[in-house]
């Protein structure tokens, strides 16, 4: 909300500078988004008289002006506008001036002609969004005067962001009240004078059936007005406050709303048929809103109707046909209090926002309903003529915010408890500030009773009083104290992603929502997807069930930017409906890896190498080992989106904990990735905690190591081979692994040469040649028996 400084001063005689006021506002809890200084912004722009005007010798559209700005010599100015003549007075930005748009005026040559200033339009002075040509000033403007002074531009405009609890401050008087109370200055009385009633006029007939939602409703007829534009001073005020002038009657009502916070509405009386009813909608009523929308209303909406149709969605918007136009002569004015929750709900349902609804849903001052009616009547009659009926009043403003006995709301609090919870003592003198803000306070020892003014809907519990004290005293006066520290032992930090990063993977974080088609890359169609009702876009419409699509996108993004390879890791949740329990879902914590392209670069010690399955498998294994776990990789050709023959389930213990494999080539090429892509995913929630390593004595006697090379059929898995080695070699075996693999020249088709290295050790003695011979024979026999493998070396 924009509040001009001069408007504030109508309510309180502030003496502080605009910047001091801005600081005070912040301290009191009103966020100042900006302080505009329209007058200071045009310092250096002076009233100039065009002494002569000649065409530029070198440019058709430019003129050479001599402009008198009150100095000894007239200024030479080259000007591109065409709406000025000799003898006109115009604003001239003199040398050194910086205009609101940031333009600094310097002496220069334009097409060879010297220019010592600039003649300005309204736009250039920051006074209008667009303008045609120079601003021509009235003939009596004093030559040489600062234009800002001459035009009486506003000294400062405060752009405030009012918090939703402070509906009472969505108007100039509310802000003025806070500032006055804080500064110890009186708030000026409202200048009100009685309305001369026209007894010949029939009162407006109003019935309120929805008393809960509309505790007070006032209406009055004004007959015989001539709707003209509002006067210039009013239009200027509205524009400065950020409102667009509409017509005289609407402008008056808007001015009062901005001034006092009471939104009002005017109906064209000649478009109404019969009496006015304020009621709850049955549902299904049609409504032609002022903004052009045709609505069908829901049961419970609060309506203002005449005998024929709905004339307003109460507190939010009037109907199009009943609005006031230039041709209107008779009106019905409405001023009311509508229940905030009702307005808020209806407004949300129709996604309608109006200045009125913003105020009603935060709560207006019920005491202002009658005041605004009186003021509006007087202003309209003063400006546009006509005569007024008496006010029809339904309900009682005093009932809003009052207790059962009709007295204003009271809050009982304990001073010492407020002090304890703020951590500061409350000086008694501060009570005066609250009193100036409209509260009535009664202290009885530690007990404090606060009567809350009608406009403060936000104050109802002791904590609210505590906030009032805190902001008046100043949050900066509260000391900084460390509370007594709890002695809870911190839980161990999850190191999942850190360990992967230590192994050379770059952590990425992707959005948790992906497109429906990405979801189908790795997860079959079923009923378990969780989709968003209101996604940002189709590309972000389903909660991911795999991290892989996000990683693939990251890989594509980077490989399109000249990265020859990526090694990525991401930890986060995947989301799916729970099949067993109705209307519940699971969020599973997973870690996922992706490798593609160069895993080693061309370097001084070697050549580039592309990632393959075993790079990623090694990384996943190492990661599992760090947490005391062992993974088993079981070939599985049935996994969606992964290439058969290069994919596996990952078992940890008996649980299937994850998947690993090469992304289907079609998927990769659809993403323009032309190197093989390998991905792995592990369900962190499925992992058991690894066992804490327990001490085992280190062997005292040296072991022996032997190599055996066999020719195997290709189809035999190395896991089966090593298992067979382990069972054949006996208890002394400490390690067995494939140390060589060869299927080149000399190896028949369909076979592969595998070198097996095994180690033996005994805790009680040094092993002999005989021991390793025995084990070798057992292994050779087992390989022959199990796999028909021939010993090569």
């Amino acid at each position, binding site marked *: 909300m924009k509040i001009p400084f001069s408007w504030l001063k109508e309510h309180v005689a502030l003496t502080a500078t605009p910047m001091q006021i801005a600081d005070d506002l912040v*301290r009191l*809890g009103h*966020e100042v988004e900006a302080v505009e200084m329209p007058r200071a912004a045009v310092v250096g722009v002076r009233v100039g008289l065009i002494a002569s005007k000649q065409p530029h010798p070198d440019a058709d559209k430019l003129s050479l002006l001599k402009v008198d700005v009150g100095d000894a010599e007239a200024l030479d100015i080259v000007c591109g506008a065409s709406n000025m003549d000799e003898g006109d007075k115009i604003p001239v930005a003199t040398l050194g001036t910086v205009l609101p748009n940031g333009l600094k005026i310097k002496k220069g040559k334009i097409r060879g002609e010297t220019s010592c200033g600039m003649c300005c339009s309204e736009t250039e002075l920051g006074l209008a969004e667009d303008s045609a040509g120079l601003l021509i000033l009235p003939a009596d403007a004093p030559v040489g005067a600062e234009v800002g002074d001459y035009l009486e531009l506003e000294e400062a405009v405060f752009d405030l962001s009012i*918090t*939703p609890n*402070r509906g009472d401050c969505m108007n100039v008087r509310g802000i003025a009240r806070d500032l006055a109370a804080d500064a110890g200055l009186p708030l000026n009385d409202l200048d009100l004078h009685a309305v001369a009633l026209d007894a010949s006029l029939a009162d407006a007939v109003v019935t309120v059936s929805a008393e809960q939602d509309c505790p007070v409703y006032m209406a009055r007829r004004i007959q015989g007005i001539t709707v003209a534009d509002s006067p210039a001073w009013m239009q200027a005020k509205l524009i400065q406050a950020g409102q667009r002038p509409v017509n005289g009657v609407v402008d008056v009502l808007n001015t009062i709303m901005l001034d006092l916070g009471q939104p009002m509405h005017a109906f064209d009386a000649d478009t109404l048929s019969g009496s006015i009813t304020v009621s709850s909608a049955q549902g299904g009523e049609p409504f032609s809103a002022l903004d052009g929308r045709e609505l069908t209303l829901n049961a419970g909406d609060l309506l203002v109707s005449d005998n024929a149709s709905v004339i307003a969605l109460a507190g939010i918007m009037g109907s199009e046909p009943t609005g006031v136009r230039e041709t209107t002569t008779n009106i019905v004015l409405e001023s009311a209090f509508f229940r905030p*929750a009702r307005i808020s*709900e209806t407004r*949300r349902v129709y996604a309608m926002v109006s200045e009125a609804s913003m105020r009603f849903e*935060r709560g207006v001052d019920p005491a202002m309903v009658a005041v605004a009616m009186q003021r509006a009547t007087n202003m309209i009659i003063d400006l546009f003529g006509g005569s007024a009926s008496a006010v029809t009043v339904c309900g009682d403003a005093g009932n809003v915010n009052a207790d059962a006995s009709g007295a204003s709301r009271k809050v009982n609090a304990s001073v010492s408890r407020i002090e*304890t*919870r*703020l*951590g*500061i003592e409350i000086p008694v003198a501060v009570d005066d500030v609250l009193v100036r803000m409209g509260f009535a306070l009664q202290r009885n020892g530690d007990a404090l009773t606060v009567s809350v003014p009608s406009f403060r809907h936000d104050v109802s519990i002791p*904590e609210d009083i505590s906030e009032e004290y805190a*902001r008046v005293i100043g949050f*900066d006066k*509260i*000391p*900084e*104290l*460390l*509370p*007594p*520290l*709890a*002695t*809870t032992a*911190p*839980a161990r930090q999850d190191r999942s992603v850190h360990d*992967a*990063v*230590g192994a*050379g*993977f*770059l*952590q*990425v*974080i992707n*959005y948790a929502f992906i497109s429906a088609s990405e979801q189908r890359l790795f997860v079959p169609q079923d009923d378990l997807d*969780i989709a*968003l*009702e209101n996604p*940002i876009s189709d590309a972000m419409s389903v*909660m991911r069930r795999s991290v892989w699509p996000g990683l693939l996108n*990251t890989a594509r*993004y980077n490989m399109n*930017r000249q*990265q020859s390879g*990526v090694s*990525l890791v991401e930890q*986060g949740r995947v*989301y799916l409906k729970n099949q067993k329990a*109705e*209307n519940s*879902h699971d*969020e599973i914590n997973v870690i996922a890896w992706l490798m593609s392209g160069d*895993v080693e670069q061309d370097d001084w*010690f070697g050549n580039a190498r592309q990632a393959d399955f075993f790079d990623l498998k090694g990384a996943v294994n190492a990661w599992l080992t760090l947490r005391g776990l062992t993974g088993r990789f079981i070939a599985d050709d049935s996994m969606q989106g992964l290439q058969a023959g290069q994919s596996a389930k990952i078992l940890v213990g008996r649980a299937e904990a994850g998947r690993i494999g090469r992304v289907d080539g079609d998927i990769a090429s659809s993403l323009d990735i032309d190197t093989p892509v390998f991905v792995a995913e592990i369900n962190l929630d499925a992992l058991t905690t690894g066992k804490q390593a327990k001490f085992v004595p280190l062997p005292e006697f040296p072991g022996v190591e032997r190599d055996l090379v066999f020719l195997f059929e290709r189809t035999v898995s190395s896991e089966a081979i090593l298992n067979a080695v382990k069972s054949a070699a006996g208890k002394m075996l400490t390690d067995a692994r494939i140390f060589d693999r060869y299927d080149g020249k000399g190896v028949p088709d369909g076979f592969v040469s595998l070198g097996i290295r095994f180690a033996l050790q005994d805790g009680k003695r040094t092993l002999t040649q005989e021991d390793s011979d025995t084990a070798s024979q057992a292994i050779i026999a087992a390989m022959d028996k199990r796999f028909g493998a021939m010993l090569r070396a």
Partner: protein
Amino acid sequence: MSEIDSLKAQLESLQADALNAFAAAENLNALQQLRVQYLGKKGALTEVLKGVGKLPPADRPVIGQHVNATKSALAAGLDACETTLAEKEKIARIEAERIDVSLPGRTKGKGALHPVQNGLDEISTIFSQMGFVVAEGPEIEDEFHNFDALNIPPEHPARAMHDTFFVKEMGNGEKSEPMLLRTHTSPVQIRTMKRFLAEGGEPPLAVVAPGRVYRCDYDVTHSPMFHQVEVFKVDRDVSMAHLKGVLKHFLSTYFEKDVAIRLRPHYFPFTEPSAEVDIGCVFCAGKGCRICKGSGWIEVLGSGMIHPNVLQSVGIDSEEFSGFAFGLGVERLVMLKQGIPDLRLFFENDVRFLSRMGVNK
């Protein structure tokens, strides 16, 4: 010349020849050969000793001393030359093995934590060290935990300001409770307090709850997903001074300097009083710059004393207990600390950005 004199002369000349030869040896191998040549079983000295037997017995001890002296001199000469040569050879070897240490080392990839992860780690660690317990909660939430329990009833204007993502009906047929993506980490406050009480706990309770949150807002300064950390403490006599103390300690630790803090009265439905928290601009030390728009202050988080309705919604007696709570945006703090200008960089995942920004010092 007597026999003895002749022997003495032989010894002297042998010693001189040997020492010259030692000094001239080019390497340890050559020196070893010389050792054999002079001191070996069939060496030159042994040859000379053969002449001793011909001497009269009385002369023998005299020449014996001479022989020993020569032997010692040769041994010392050998050792000295050996040391010199060994040193020389070592130097030569070192020269030959010299490498260019400025060549890059062999590395396995360029791993780095995401800067948001770094931020989350740092923030959680600071609070863990202050005795706050880490808690988590679901990202797909119900309206009760995200709004109602936090004193944001359905018609509340603040509810509309949350730009909530709603989840499509999850039940089959029967109209079920609407679910949403949590708009803040504050529901973890509710869930943690409820669980704590259900397990028979009684305040004090101090919790830090990091996590992802979602807002249906996507432009230069808004991301539909971002990270928050919710921090709260409930105990007897928790005061706003404690809130300020914890904020000051946290922000100064996080920014690694003594930062000034400023609390401004604000409004949040779940706290009363509520305050927005500014820090003295970390870029200009409060003098006023482009980042702080000349004010010298930068808004970093929202805070306040937990609203009695919130405590009551989980069954904590607000007469007996009070608490503070605040929620901070992780991306915002990381941006301020590392000078990152654009929120969108975090989720673009450009490896050039990540590998540079993710350095965990």
